[in-house]
């Protein structure tokens, strides 16, 4: 039971990170109907920017950890957004209204570019960052025949879950209450009509990418803090899993992306905890395949009626 609870907490933490990345996929898919394959690599870029900022702040002598974390978060969100904007501007906007496969190929191309750019400029070796936030609270202490097991909720995990929740609420409000959110939903429904009614479609789409990239940067920073190791290749697997999460939750739906992220995180952690670590990815992907076969529109997606 204690073991189960501990895994649950770990799964939710990992799931929050997947969820944050998944939002980027789901927003972009919702608005322009494309799989932004480079999004996982934007997440990777975000984690590298966070790492460099963190080190720079330490190097110039700021010692208050909360301040460092806060500035790092803001800087990485800001700069990663610029990357998200640029990718859209260079690789997707020229192909707006073109054929479906063209932006998919440029997305895969951008993904390759980003990975190799970071590899060349920052080196191929992994970057370890020692744990910065230590300690936590012990929730339950249980006794088993092998000794005591404690269910720990570390401060790190609390920060991740709390930040995710806050961002989730913030973004939901942004989408439902502001005029930007309204333009976004209008573009989702019908880009041409939205443009006729005075919505700046290009700007709205750019902002969608910027928002997605900012959230990916948060995820990248948290991944860095949680695991303490990043390299230029982390974007691929995280990206595929986050996309899986977005599809699982019902692509196009923000709460769905979050829910999907949490589920993928939980599946992965529980599978590793109870069965085998090696096959955790197989478990996540198998769930995806099964869900898609039996519930093609995901958990919270709108069911699609075939129009004849």
């Amino acid at each position: 039971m204690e073991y189960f609870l501990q895994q649950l907490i770990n799964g939710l933490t990992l799931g929050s990170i997947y969820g944050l990345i998944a939002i980027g996929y789901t927003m972009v898919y919702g608005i322009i109907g494309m799989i932004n394959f480079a999004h996982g690599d934007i997440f990777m870029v975000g984690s590298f920017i966070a790492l460099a900022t963190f080190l720079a702040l330490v190097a110039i002598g700021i010692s208050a950890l909360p301040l460092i974390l806060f500035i790092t978060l803001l800087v990485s969100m800001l700069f990663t957004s610029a990357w998200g904007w640029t990718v859209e501007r260079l690789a997707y906007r020229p192909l707006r209204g073109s054929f479906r496969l063209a932006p998919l190929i440029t997305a895969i191309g951008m993904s390759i570019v980003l990975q190799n750019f970071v590899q060349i400029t920052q080196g191929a070796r992994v970057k370890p960052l020692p744990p910065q936030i230590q300690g936590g609270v012990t929730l339950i202490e249980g006794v088993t025949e092998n000794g005591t097991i404690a269910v720990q909720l570390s401060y790190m995990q609390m920060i991740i879950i709390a930040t995710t929740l806050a961002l989730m609420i913030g973004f939901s409000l942004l989408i439902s209450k502001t005029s930007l959110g309204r333009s976004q939903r209008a573009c989702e429904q019908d880009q041409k009509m939205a443009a006729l009614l005075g919505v700046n479609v290009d700007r709205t789409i750019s902002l969608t990418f910027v928002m997605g990239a900012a959230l990916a940067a948060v995820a990248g920073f948290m991944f860095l803090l949680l695991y303490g190791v990043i390299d230029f290749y982390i974007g691929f697997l995280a990206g595929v899993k986050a996309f899986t999460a977005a599809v699982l939750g019902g692509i196009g739906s923000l709460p769905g992306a979050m829910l999907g992220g949490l589920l993928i995180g939980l599946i992965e952690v529980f599978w590793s905890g109870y069965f085998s670590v090696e096959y955790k990815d197989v478990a996540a992907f198998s769930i995806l395949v099964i869900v898609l076969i039996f519930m093609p529109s995901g958990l919270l997606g709108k069911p699609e009626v075939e129009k004849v």
Partner: protein
Amino acid sequence: MTTAPSTARMADSVKDAAIAALLVAVLGFFFLALRTDIGTGGLDLTTRWGLWFIAIAITFGVRLALNLFVFKAARPVTRGIKVTAPAGLTSFVGRFLGPFLLILALCLPFLLMALFPNRDRQFIDLAILIMTYVMLGWGLNIVVGLAGLLDLGYVAFYAVGAYSFALLAQYFEIGFWTAVPLAGLLAALWGIILGYPVLRLRGDYLAIVTLAFGEIIRVVLLNWYDFTGGPDGISGIPKPSFFGLDFSRTGGFAEFFGLDYDSIHRFIYLYYIILVLALITNFVTLRLRKLPIGRAWEALREDEIACRSLGINTTNTKLTAFSIGAMFAGFAGSFFATRQGFISPESFTFLESAIILAIVVLGGLGSQVGVVIASVVMIGGIEVLRNLGFLKEIFGPDFEPTQYRMLIFGLAMVLIMVWKPRGIISSRNPSAVYKERKKISSDMVAQGEGH
């Protein structure tokens, strides 16, 4: 525009170039100006201001020059640049390009031996590699180009083919020529097994599920240590024999035909094997296109609902496309295993699927010649970058051109797609003609579900 004063244009151009430079400054700050490295006491942060400034300056200069001399406008137009070849030239090229390429492919090893006597082995090896991708591209073209099914896990079937041969050779000592059809059949079988449950999914969902299958197969190969050797892979895969003759120093091919032993014989032999396999793929695909099954694939790509209203069993039709595509990947996989003599899950990553898909899309969906051109440009291009040793003399000894291979590959993918979203060869040949054969502009051709 033409009457606009040139000073205004100049000012706009400078402004635009400055914005571009600013963007590079922002984007590059954490990657060019700063670099993290593992130092003695953890991570070190080093600065490279020089590199950063150079990048900004180059961006400004190039952008300004482009604005002033190429785009001839304040704002560069990334869209609408059209290069149209005269119609006569296009039809001439269209008619003779295929046969020309075929003859070239048939003579290639001897041409290479005559032209580059010192580096023939290397070039023939490259030709083998390109031809492998041509074959994979042709195989995937059936699935993506004709049937319009977006498959991001094609490499899975390539892996199935390679591992089938490797394992059959390891456990049952089966030779290459027996293994090729078996590997193809096994891959086709896997195509049916994986395809059956998922082929009713819509375009993008199908893409992600096939990607997932590709990863699942790779992870299983990686972790099923007892059977597949895990990350160590399988080595000692037998080489193909020529009607029972090996390409060994004694008692083999060279001795039988009274030639001096030369290791290049084996390379040439391998080249012709893959050429024949690829040509079979091409022949079968071209034939299938003109048969009811191929026409049903294309109809499926155009409109699935209309297909069903005409009595076409869409599930079976998709399955045939999927499994025939998989079969050719299986053939290519077993060839890959015998050429390398060693395989491991490393060779079957998502990147391979992406490259094959890129070849198909860049070449022009459904176009067989397009696949050849795209393979030569993309795969050949990557390899050319390996040989740019002279750049070291310009940029100093630390400069490693091979590092930039994939970066340039990715950029090329983006640029070609933006330049020609429908691929290099973008017209469709009708599969049946009543009076006059007319090319169909790709603007009318659908690209499959969910577009």
